[in-house]
């Protein structure tokens, strides 16, 4: 994150917990990705799922998953969809398929010289939301990175600054 960005606002908008999401964010703070699982058939489902799409059961519990998966699709966002995301652009929103089956919408962080591609291996990373230097910090958020991407240091993990986004971001100003 650059000094310029800090002046504008956090790259990850501040996210607060509610009662229903407390276990999810507690897990994230421990470095674990918590999703749902159908008690009937064992299907592993996205965290926000209410009904198992295979059997129709609403009897779901929670399970920690590996955090590994593959990239289904991604979008390089240049026009922020809401004011709290303005400091983040350009960023990558990704559709990730976890190894256990469910799809998640999450930020793709870090950079990779090869750039994203469908089917690329990804793994979960955890980043603070809100402005870390200006408490109160928000909850820890699961995000994803290409497995070959550099480490999870703040510079690498918080912006989509890879050659791909720069190369395709011409004629924006």
């Amino acid at each position: 994150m650059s000094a310029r960005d800090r002046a504008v606002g956090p790259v990850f908008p501040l996210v607060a917990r509610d009662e229903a999401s407390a276990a999810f964010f507690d897990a994230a703070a421990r470095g674990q990705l918590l999703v749902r699982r159908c008690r009937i058939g064992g299907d592993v489902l996205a965290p926000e799922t209410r009904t198992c799409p295979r059997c129709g059961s609403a009897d779901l519990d929670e399970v920690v998953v590996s955090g590994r998966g593959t990239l289904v699709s991604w979008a390089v966002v240049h026009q922020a969809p809401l004011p709290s995301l303005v400091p983040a652009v350009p960023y990558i929103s990704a559709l990730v398929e976890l190894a256990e089956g469910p799809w998640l919408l999450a930020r793709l962080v870090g950079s990779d010289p090869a750039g994203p591609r469908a089917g690329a291996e990804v793994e979960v990373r955890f980043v603070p939301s809100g402005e870390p230097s200006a408490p109160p910090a928000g909850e820890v958020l699961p995000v994803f990175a290409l497995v070959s991407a550099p480490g999870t240091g703040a510079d690498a993990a918080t912006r989509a600054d890879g050659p791909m986004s720069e190369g395709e971001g011409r004629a924006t100003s």
Partner: protein
Amino acid sequence: MTGADLAAIAGLGMTRLGKVYGRSSTSLAAEAVRLALADAGLSLGDLDGLLISGGIRQDVGVSLAGVLSTGPLGLLAQVNAFGASAGAMVAQAAQAIAAGVASTVACVFADTPLRPQRPAGAAWGAPKAGAGGAVGLAGWQLASGATNPNILYALAARRHMERYGTRSEQLAEVAVAQRAWAAGNPLATMREPLTVEQHQASRPIAEPLRLLDCCLVTNGAVAVVVTAADRAADLRQPPVHLWGYGQAHQPRRMLSGSDWGLVTPAARCGPQAMRMAGIGVDDVDVCELYDCYTYTVVVTLEDYGFCAKGEGGAFVAGGRLAPGGKLACNTGGGQLSGYYMWGMTPLSEAVVQARGQGGTRQAPRNDVILVSGNGGILEHHATLVLSPHRRRGNAA
């Protein structure tokens, strides 16, 4: 079933479209209904059914009947399947007429998302982040950044591109063709010629989608009047006969094996409507396809069977959809260059084409017109098959 030809569109009403400020959606809706009735040579006293749909703002409802001071109605409802609403309303009107519960049904769409001194891109609402930020799992999803249709459709389009090799230059062909059609439409917002190079140079919104892949935002209202085919024949305008209709809905399947972004509910809906109409894609003279994004046109053409799955990008290349091309498509400029009235954009232009009132943009043949509506993030679909001719005795 072959009874769909019992209904026809007898009237079309369109208010001023675009930066129309100082009018409520309800006021515009009322005007569009009056215009549609007058177009048909009917009066408010003839109206016994009213179906209403709103757009981004969703601020028009059944109170419209009171605003119009209608007489007794046998059918009154608000319909919302997003971009599929227009097709759904026409089908419901036809069903009500066939069932004898109404004889003259107005279907109206109205929206006023544009505000003075606010960019059009701000029209789409986003999840509200409170003063303290976003909350719960919804907050985590907000932080994913995929919070509006531009980004979600970009994810769908990217998946199609990665799987099938569809290229941005091919999406550009859709925008370029529609702009060429828009030149002949006095109601179109964008009528200056457009090139693939200009499309490629337009600023990225959510790659792979660029500005010129995305629809306009429009204030205004559009209404059609549906009545029995026999009655429509005696009215002021040439009747536009309904040969077939269909709806298909599928919540986004967010799990392994999902074909989201590759196949849409149009794949079920189109064949259903064409089967009812007794036609196949080879019979279609004009397509009016819902085009919230260029990509939507490509995937809908595939799903309807105009080309094999995955070949939509190649199909639209070389000006196939443009004036003089092999398939007249979005002949009024669509929502990319014409006006953004959700499903009423393709439907209104289909009525114009079926009547032969397209002027310099009239398609060379108009015997069978296919109309699509797509809503949500590829979750809702409606199809209509329209024709200037009654179906019986005309089916090939």
